[in-house]
């Protein structure tokens, strides 16, 4: 038990040190410092939300366009940023391999965690800002909102866990990532509920872990004003499979990694 406690202490120390290191490296200590982490998702979500508001009118399918698009876009930026951050994460963090208490999983996790915290801060900021203006509803079911977001995050992280080691093994992957993340937008549930689609498309969406997390989130925000359909099995099973593959790949890549 005491060795577990000691391990846990080291783990916490390492994670917090890595977070601070990453924030200082990326954002420095000038002006708003680490608050930059939420600026990108914030700008994306608000600006795309406003664009859609003027393209589609104030509401679509009975919900606020701005709130719908903003809530989707936060998830999309989380996914895109954390995927691009996990590419070549082993090589760029070579200097960390000099300290045996730092494991490769630590810095893959830390990079994801920072993106997740940034996305959540942006989300909270947007919600608080738009609620008094009537563009954003008070969440109908906070539990569903958090649950849906957690599922979405879990799956995104499991994907990073696979892509990080794969990107070290293959140079082609790095070049394929941008186009893949773009093509998957329709399968991410960002701009529509499954129930708005044709029955054929709905069958496909059923197998997208992103869509399942997003549907649950949307239900948490809009409640019964949207016809949300979700299942927990697809995102949970998908995440578990990717986590297992990712762990095996990380172990393999760490063994053959050449550190300068």
């Amino acid at each position, binding site marked *: 038990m005491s060795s577990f406690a000691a391990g846990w*202490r*080291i783990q916490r*120390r*390492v994670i*917090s*040190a890595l977070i*601070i*290191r990453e924030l*200082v*490296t990326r954002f420095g200590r000038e002006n708003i410092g680490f608050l930059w982490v939420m600026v990108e998702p914030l700008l994306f979500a608000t600006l795309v939300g406003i664009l859609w508001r003027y393209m589609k009118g104030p509401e679509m399918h009975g919900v606020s366009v701005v709130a719908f698009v903003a809530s989707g876009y936060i998830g999309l930026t989380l996914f895109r940023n954390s995927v691009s951050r996990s590419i070549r994460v082993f090589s760029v963090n*070579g*200097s960390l*391999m*000099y*300290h*045996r*208490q*730092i494991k490769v999983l630590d810095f893959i996790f830390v990079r994801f965690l920072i993106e997740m915290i940034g996305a959540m801060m942006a989300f909270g900021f947007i919600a608080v800002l738009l609620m008094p203006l009537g563009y954003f509803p008070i969440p109908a079911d906070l539990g569903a909102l958090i649950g849906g977001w957690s599922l979405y995050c879990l799956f995104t992280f499991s994907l990073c866990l696979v892509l990080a080691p794969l990107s070290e093994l293959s140079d082609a992957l790095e070049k394929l990532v941008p186009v893949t993340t773009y093509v998957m937008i329709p399968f991410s549930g960002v701009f529509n509920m499954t129930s708005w689609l044709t029955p054929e498309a709905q069958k496909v969406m059923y197998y997208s872990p992103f869509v399942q997390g997003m549907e649950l989130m949307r239900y948490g925000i809009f409640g019964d004003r949207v016809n949300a359909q979700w299942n927990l099995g697809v995102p949970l099973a998908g995440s578990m499979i990717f986590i297992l593959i990712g762990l095996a790949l990380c172990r393999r890549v*760490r*063994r*053959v*990694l*050449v*550190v*300068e």
Partner: protein
Amino acid sequence: MIHCDQLTKSYPMGSGRKRVLKGIDLDVRPGQHIGFLGRNGAGKTTLIKLIGGVEMPTSGRIRRKMSVSWPLGFGGGFQGSLTGYDNARFIARIYGYEYSEIRDFVEDFSELGAQLRMPVKTYSSGMRARLGFALSLAIEFDCYLIDEIIMVGDANFHQKCHYELFEKRRDRALIFASHSFELVREFCDCALVLDDGLGTIYPDVNEALEVYAAL
């Protein structure tokens, strides 16, 4: 103790593999000072990296029953875009030391002054060595891994390293890769001569130096 059992390490080279280490057995006892001798490319740095856990052996295993420093060499271990102070903060955090303690020691030992507020990538190799040495000596290890680096720096810095490493910490184990006959003869109790991926340990340092000179 550190036990190394049949360590091999190979790297991909073209379509084949380059076998750098072909089966190294080595035991390091507490307080023992081992010199690693070998020509450039003999695998000294690779072996030190394996012992330090920076890279993993292709086969074989390493058991560490004492705390082992990270390998102190010309590269590695720093985040170049961070300042000397930020690197010190990071080291203090991950090793569970008080930052103020580490900072005081680093300022005093490295004598880098205001340069510590600059990103490490702007440092010369001598300055990096000073910072690296200061950081690893600020953390108490049972065994220090030192790769060549001791030759860097001016006479005054040599003097300090000498005191901190060979006098104050003479009870610690030391693994020390060097081409300097003088240093190995003066400070090592035994030496490992690396040649063609194999290592031979010589309890008599002078004999090891003779073998090395004949390579």
